């Protein structure tokens, strides 16, 4: 992957001037490249990874992974059905999978009831949805490459040869 993207993927707050110093390019060309990535949709969004378990003022919520088996549509395959499903705001992620089911959805709701309602009243009744299997998340250990537990690793000595 391009170096600028690599740096931003790890930390979106690194400024163009800093990226320029890290990569040995000029700040102007870094700014230009970033603009282009944004325009082309390569950079989709800048966001923050939050451990909501620790953020006390965040309303409680539940998350579930749902396996969905669907009947593909003529001419458009899975894409048409997938679009109808992922357009619901409750769906945080939607992936087409190999294996025993077709779509994997990640759903977030205030409680088990809201997620169940979504499955029962919106997802399952869709004409092309054959089977759904819902798994509720119990605990998050690691997300997007980040371990959510604060590391207790002992510091290195402050100074050494």
């Amino acid at each position, binding site marked *: 992957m391009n*170096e600028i993207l*690599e*740096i931003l993927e790890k*930390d979106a707050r*690194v400024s163009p001037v*800093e990226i320029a*110093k*890290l*990569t*040995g390019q000029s700040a102007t060309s870094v700014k230009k490249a970033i603009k282009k990535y944004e325009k082309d949709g390569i950079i989709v969004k800048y966001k923050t990874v939050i451990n909501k378990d620790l953020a006390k003022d965040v309303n409680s919520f539940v998350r579930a992974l749902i396996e969905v088996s669907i009947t593909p549509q003529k001419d458009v395959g899975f894409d048409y059905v997938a679009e109808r499903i992922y357009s619901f705001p409750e769906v945080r992620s939607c992936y087409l999978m190999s294996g025993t089911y077709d779509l994997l959805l990640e759903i977030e709701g205030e409680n088990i009831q809201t997620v169940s309602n979504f499955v029962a009243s919106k997802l399952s009744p869709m004409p092309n949805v054959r089977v759904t299997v819902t798994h509720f998340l119990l605990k998050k250990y690691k997300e997007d490459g980040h371990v959510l537990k604060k590391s207790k*690793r002992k510091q*290195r*000595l*402050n*100074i*050494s*040869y």
Partner: protein
Amino acid sequence: MKIAKKVDQLKPSGIRAFFDLVLNMKDVISLGVGEPDFVTPWGIREKAIYSIEQGYTSYTSNKGMAELRKAIVNFLYHRYGLNYHFDNETLITVGVSEGLDLAVRAILNPGDKVLIPEPCYVSYGPVVELAGGKPVFLKTDIKNEFKLSPKQIEKACTKGVKALMINYPCNPTGASYTKKELREIAKVVKKKNLIVISDEVYDELTYDFDHTPLSSFPGMKDYVIYLNGFSKGYAMTGFRLGWVCGPEKIIAGMTKIHQYTMLCAPIISQMAAVEALRSGLKDVQSMKKEYMRRRRFVVSRLNEIGLDCHMPQGAFYVFPSIKKTKQSSLNFAQDLLKKKKVALVPGVAFGPSVEGYIRISYASSFENLKEAMLRIEQYLAK
């Protein structure tokens, strides 16, 4: 009770007090650390845990586990085209530090002289002195990017000079040598029949060109004691594991000392090291990429701030000049620590005549480096 004269005469590190000050201070941003800020890759740590679970808690053969020695020579062959025999040309040591000590003890007779570039790693002079040898320091400075020239080595080869110690990429300067430069050094080594103790522990952290082991030039195997280890590239400092490859006679000599003084390197570290060689290179590459960026950032910031700094080719150190501040390196370091809580190592630690430089380690998070550079800038602006 009196300690031995030889030990008594070892120069006490003038900066011990400064080190103690840093170690006891809280909330310091430290650029003074000589080890990676990455933790050992999990696959390697997992293997170490597994080894303990499986009951690998015994001694190994003096030379180290055959499996590890085989893995090392195999690795060296594929990485650098080096041809060492795992059994009579390879020894596993407790870090490169032990390797250095064994090497000088195995080759020096009382009074033999050893050429050592300056600035250099802190133990070079003392291990030579403890082995009864005499260090002869060859100065390098920022003008020649802290590199020894072949001429300089040749000129220094006066009567009694038996060996040359070289460390590239270098702690503390980050300097390294290209293949072309090494070829010229190799010529002088042969001409003057020197034994070279070549400490290449930072080899995986070479940024602008490929690292070339000195022993890879035709015929040089007979002149070189090649030292390397797992500490820096694989972020395994606490495992204390290194290796030596060299001529059979010298390895036999070093093994003799090693068997009486160390017996063997810890088996758990050896098991972990086998895993490091098997699967660790990918982790090394990703750490290297990170260091490379930080290096560019730090050099660019230091020059911006007004501290003259060359672009080092390897390791994770930069060695800027502080001559314009007119302070000694120790004063500079002490004052910066006191006023801005940034710790770094004064250049004088790396040789008594090394003045006007500081060592900055960029084995520290980008956030830390950014903040530290800002503080140094503020310090200099006052």
